[in-house]
């Protein structure tokens, strides 16, 4: 049922993403095997496995309650913060099992950044929002270092030019789209290996959404990005690979073109043609 094979060269998304070179070993950033998640007695995810390559965007799609967000939150152990949640199986990030016995979940979350559904900047200044991560992890040796990290992160998030004159203004005073880009800047300020995005555009207007999508496409050059989205057009636009979830199962995973043009599973086909969801 689950197809782990990668077909390099088959990518042809609307953003003209460069195809992975043929014949070279693919560098997987995340490898998940037999991941099951339980909320109390209820099982939300059934033995899911997936391989996510580096420097690309993986989209998780599926109807509400299909387990895609639950799965995403396994990658940075965010499910640990829910008392009733239990995760089984193993997830390797950069070859290391983040559910291993000697792993500190707090450190996992520094390595795997996350952007949430609703923009959630800290009610502090724009500078402090971005500087918080580097500060608690001791990434900057001096004040100058910290400023450099903040500026660079804001630049990468495509926000610097809009806020450079008011870095000491409130982060919550920005527009919704700007706030979400601030949250992205905050996530990349700690130089994570992976960025998880949980429906990052669902609270934004179309113009702000377009900017975030553009940004995701740029960030792909340096990061492994996993995005959960309800918007199938968005998945088609930004991702190179797509995974379709249904009722807690991973139904199909393939290149984005393959999923949208030529799905193998009937359920995938029904979902992308709008027959349910």
């Amino acid at each position, binding site marked *: 049922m689950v197809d782990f094979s990668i077909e390099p060269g088959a990518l042809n998304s609307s953003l003209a993403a460069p195809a992975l070179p043929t014949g070279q070993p693919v560098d997987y950033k995340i490898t998940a095997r037999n991941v099951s998640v339980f909320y109390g007695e209820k099982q939300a995810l059934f033995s899911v496995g997936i391989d996510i390559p580096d420097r690309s965007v993986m989209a998780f799609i599926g109807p509400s309650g299909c387990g895609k967000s639950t799965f995403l939150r396994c990658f940075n152990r965010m499910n640990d913060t829910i008392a009733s949640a239990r995760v089984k199986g193993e997830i390797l990030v950069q070859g290391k099992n983040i559910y291993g016995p000697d792993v500190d979940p707090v450190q996992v979350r*520094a390595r795997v950044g996350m952007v*949430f559904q609703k923009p*959630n900047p800290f009610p502090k200044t724009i500078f402090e929002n971005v500087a918080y991560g580097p500060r608690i992890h001791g990434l900057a040796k001096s004040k100058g270092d910290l400023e450099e990290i903040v500026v660079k992160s804001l630049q990468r998030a495509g926000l610097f030019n809009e806020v450079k004159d008011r870095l000491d203004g409130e982060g919550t005073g920005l527009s919704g789209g700007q706030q979400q880009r601030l949250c992205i800047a905050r996530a990349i300020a700690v130089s994570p290996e992976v960025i998880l995005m949980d429906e990052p555009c669902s609270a934004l207007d179309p113009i702000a959404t377009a900017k975030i999508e553009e940004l995701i496409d740029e960030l792909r050059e340096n990061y492994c990005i996993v995005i959960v989205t309800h918007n199938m057009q968005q998945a088609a636009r930004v991702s190179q690979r797509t995974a379709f979830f249904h009722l807690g199962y991973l139904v199909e995973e393939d290149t984005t073109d393959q999923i949208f043009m030529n799905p193998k599973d009937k359920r995938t086909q029904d979902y992308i043609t709008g027959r349910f969801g």
Partner: protein
Amino acid sequence: MSAVAQDSSMSDSDAAETVGRFDNPALMRRRRREEVRFQAYGLIAIALGMSFLVILFGTIIRDGWTAFFQTSIELPIKFDAAEIDPDGTRNANALAQANYQKLANQALYGQLGVDPSSRAQRQAANALVSRDVDSQLRAMVASDPKIIGTTQNVWVLASGNVDAFAKGKIDRELPQENRQISDQQISWIDKLTASGAMEKSFNTGLFTNTASSQPETAGLAVALLGSFYIMLIVVLLSVPLGVAAAIYLEEFAPRNRITDIIEVNINNLAAVPSIVFGLLGLAVFINFAGLPRSASLVGGLVLTLRTLPTVIIATRASITAVPPSIREAALGVGASKVQSVFHHVLPLSLPGIITGTIIGLVQAIGETAPLLMIGMVAFVVDVPSSPLDPATALPVQIYMWATEAERGFVEKTAGATIVLLGILAVMNILAMVLRKRYERKW
């Protein structure tokens, strides 16, 4: 058909009928009557509440504002060396034992033209001056013995009855047998007032004097200091304990039966009658731990127990009000649970915590019953220099003055109530300002 249907430009009869279906005049009238009636009930309730408030404050202020003023009499007192220090040794002991009351009385006789040979006249004149004049003059001589042998103009306190008369609390139209001031005394008072030798001035003694059986020299110093020590102890203990307990329960404790029971009991504790806390304090802090009776330390400990549930409940409420997205954001960049709480959740809930604490303090400062149980109802003459010394508290002082028989204590009681209400008002305004200032909308 109905007016609405006819006025409408709709030619379609179906549409007209649809409008007409809701057009029941009897029903509409009843609905409107109900609305008017309900609003009237509300207005009556508010008016009733407000009028009681006005009556309460009105009577307290009417009876109490005069307590902030005090009548004094200016007397040219001759510090007669023969009277104070007949041996001329300037011995401190001898100076302390001299009869200063006599000096004041003699000055008064001279001022009023009293016949010193008439015992009745002498007594009537003596009753004009407070008995406190003795210690006032003694203190003057002790601080500067050089005044012996000179004549000084000194403002001395008038007696409680004279003070009450000067403030209009004793009616001069009453027959002489029914008032505590005789006609003779009234004529003297009028004479002194006319010559400017009797005046009302701001009563600093209300704040600096300690317990006294004379209303004119009784003050709130011990009660104010006792209440201050109690507040200090309550803040120092209940804030750290309450905030720590609230943070643990809200952010770290697992949700299970035990935490449920703890939660229910904290809420119950807030509803326990305060006298029970007094009994607890008596049993634990005084009888078991052996702390001193009547001490503000024990009062503070008891009222800490009383305030703790309020602080915990207020803190938990303001922690819950911080949206979970802020915690997720902090955890998402790799902050630990403790970091997310102390860097983000706690600063954001601080205004709520401060407001809750002030409200708890307001509760504690007005608490009387538990303090009675631990013996803070006492006649304390010495200003307490530490929380271990015997003291009273403001509401207890009000209670004690209310039980005094003398006329002058009526205004003292009301005056002390004004002081207490003033402190409460300031604290409430402070809580309101802080809440408005740091309030954050999500």
